């Protein structure tokens, strides 16, 4: 059976409602235009709208199917008050053709109730949620249909009546869910919201009277906003590791740029320079009206006493941090690393990539240098053709990449067993060992070869070249 999923204002005026049978609705309004519901597209649009709302607050949570919850703590003053902020939000949404109702209250539950059941743009004063909620029907508590219907049947038509009941009766009679929703609405119980982005108090915003679009203007705007946030970080003695810059355009889309720092920082000049090459890639569309900047991974950062430059002094990590930042932001954070020792016998796993400026970890005991290890290690060992006099001996002759090499000296074997503890037990095969040899050919080139598996007279052994010594 087909039912109406949503109705617009005109249809509602004709007495149609969501959940009505489509045939009934068509009978009531013969010229009714029905479009297929697309829940997935609605969810995607809601997510896009949540991103758009980042211009109002860094903390936006979606409330499916059709709601958004914005944490505007400490943000409203940017608009000159909560009333003007709500007006701005709803006006802009209306400008985009979206009908919206908004409300501001102390708790997400109270704001939800006011937005759905009070006149549009209701503002509950701080501490005034209970009074604002009192006359609303119990359905405003985000109860299930059955719960709300039962409460209404018992005569508890509004929230004030429900809140007046002794609490110890409410739970057993109507279920814990009702108590929890009531407490959430009144702000006495917490509510976990999944924000699209973690709320960051380190957030700055600049809006323009006239939309800007030239690269110079964008660069200047980003420089200004970086300075504002950097000054706040400086006062608080903190630095950020990641900065998200977003240009919100007239078309409603946000162009996001992110830079990362190897060490927490707040040097506005350095941060602006890292953004500069990225800004050139921004397509401003019809113009940019709002720029926001958020600092992430904010850490305490002690102010540093400038030192006299001493000759021959070893560079500490703060000296080279700007270089690491430039390289990491240009080539990608994964393209800059420092090799750290990892306790593993498998040569491929003995090296772990670490952030370039991370302090060495305690378990990094370094590599054991008494075992020969090549300078170049191939990611995949390359097969070689081998001639060995005795099956268990290093080869006397091998051919690699079409070139023949006569082995003059050899060292080994060093037997490296497979790390059976990383496999399922049945798969742990003691035969899967590699016998590594270091060999030198007549020209002096050194190779790291291994034979796969233990000696078995039935099958000819397989030989591989795994690395080169310099």
């Amino acid at each position: 059976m087909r039912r109406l999923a949503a109705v617009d204002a005109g249809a509602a005026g004709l007495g149609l409602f969501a959940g009505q049978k489509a045939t009934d609705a068509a009978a009531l309004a013969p010229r009714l235009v029905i479009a297929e519901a697309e829940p997935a597209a609605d969810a995607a649009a809601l997510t896009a709208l949540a991103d758009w709302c980042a211009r109002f607050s860094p903390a936006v949570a979606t409330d499916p199917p059709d709601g958004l919850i914005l944490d505007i703590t400490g943000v409203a003053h940017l608009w000159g008050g909560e009333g003007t902020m709500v007006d701005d939000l709803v006006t802009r949404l209306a400008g985009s053709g979206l009908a919206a109702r908004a409300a501001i209250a102390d708790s997400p539950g109270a704001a939800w109730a006011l937005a759905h059941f009070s006149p549009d743009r209701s503002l509950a004063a701080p501490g005034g949620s209970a009074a604002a909620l009192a006359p609303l029907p119990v359905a405003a508590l985000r109860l299930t249909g059955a719960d709300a219907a039962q409460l209404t049947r018992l005569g508890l038509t509004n929230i004030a009546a429900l809140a007046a009941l002794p609490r110890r009766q409410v739970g057993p009679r109507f279920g814990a869910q009702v108590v929890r929703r009531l407490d959430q609405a009144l702000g006495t119980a917490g509510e976990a919201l999944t924000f699209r982005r973690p709320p960051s108090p380190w957030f700055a915003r600049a809006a323009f009277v006239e939309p800007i679009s030239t690269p110079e203007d964008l660069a200047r705007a980003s420089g200004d906003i970086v300075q504002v946030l950097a000054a706040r970080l400086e006062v608080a003695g903190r630095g950020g590791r990641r900065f998200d810059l977003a240009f919100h355009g007239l078309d409603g889309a946000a162009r996001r740029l992110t830079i990362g720092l190897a060490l927490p920082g707040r040097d506005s000049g350095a941060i602006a320079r890292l953004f500069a090459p990225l800004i050139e890639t921004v397509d401003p569309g019809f113009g940019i009206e709002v720029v926001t900047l958020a600092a992430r991974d904010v850490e305490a950062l002690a102010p540093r006493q400038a030192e006299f430059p001493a000759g021959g002094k070893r560079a500490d990590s703060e000296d080279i941090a700007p270089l690491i930042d430039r390289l990491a932001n240009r080539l990608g954070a994964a393209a800059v690393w420092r090799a750290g020792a990892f306790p593993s016998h498998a040569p491929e796993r003995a090296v772990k990539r670490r952030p370039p400026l991370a302090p060495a970890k305690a378990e990094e005991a370094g590599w054991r240098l008494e075992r020969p290890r090549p300078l170049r290690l191939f990611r995949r060992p390359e097969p070689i053709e081998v001639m060995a006099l005795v099956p268990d001996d290093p080869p006397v002759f091998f051919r690699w990449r079409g070139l023949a090499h006569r082995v003059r000296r050899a060292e080994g074997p060093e037997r490296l067993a497979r790390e059976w503890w990383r496999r399922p037990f049945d798969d742990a095969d003691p035969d899967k060992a590699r016998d590594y040899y270091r060999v030198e050919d007549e020209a002096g080139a050194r190779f790291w070869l291994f034979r796969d598996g233990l000696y078995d007279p039935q099958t000819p052994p397989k030989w591989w070249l795994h690395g080169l010594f310099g």
Partner: protein
Amino acid sequence: MSREARLLAVRRRIAALEAGAAAGVAPFGDARVDACLPGGGLPLGRWHEAAGEGMELETAAAAAAFIAALAAPLAERGAVVWVMRRQDLYAPGLAALGFPAERLIQVCARDEAQALGALEDALGAEGIAAAIGEVESPSLLAGRRLQLACERHGATGFVIRRRLFGGRASEAGSAAATRWIIAAAPSAPEAGEPGLGAPRWRVALERCRGGRPGAWIMEKSDDASSLRVVAELGDRQLDPAPSERLAG
């Protein structure tokens, strides 16, 4: 000021620039090598080029080992950056050559231009003592840019010529202060010792600004990361590596 005096001043400036006097030199500690180099050692604050021949042009193992041995003492003065395009540099192997591999900053670039850009950026940055780059062939312009970057803070650059996909080397001239051709040489373990001896290289100083070419066999000495000259090969080009490429 007379014309002669002005000329003399300019000549002095040129000589100072040529010798790289500001950043000093790193002597090899062997008169046979140091005599070939201007100022009696490897000029610092300049950039140097090393290449292999034959298959080494593609794998660049011997050249990388030689450069690691040269750059290891510089790691005491500041950070060292290694820019590469193929990620086959193995840190334990570097550590075995006496290079502080756990402090080395490794950078992987996607193409030649990016690798040269990263190398130039690293050379011009504060706190960097040396930067090593594996690139195919820096053009004259790129070489000049590297030199300018070296001069900013006195960092020393090393370019390892490496063709990732084999083929012939392009013989583009370059602005390098020195150009070395490195090949592996058979080791000579002490009599009665089994296995391999300390690594040896045939090292040819092919070109050197303000110096003269030479060729030696060098060995990595056990104690430190320094190089020991085993034999002098004379001022001649090394024999080309055996290019016996068989079907297969």
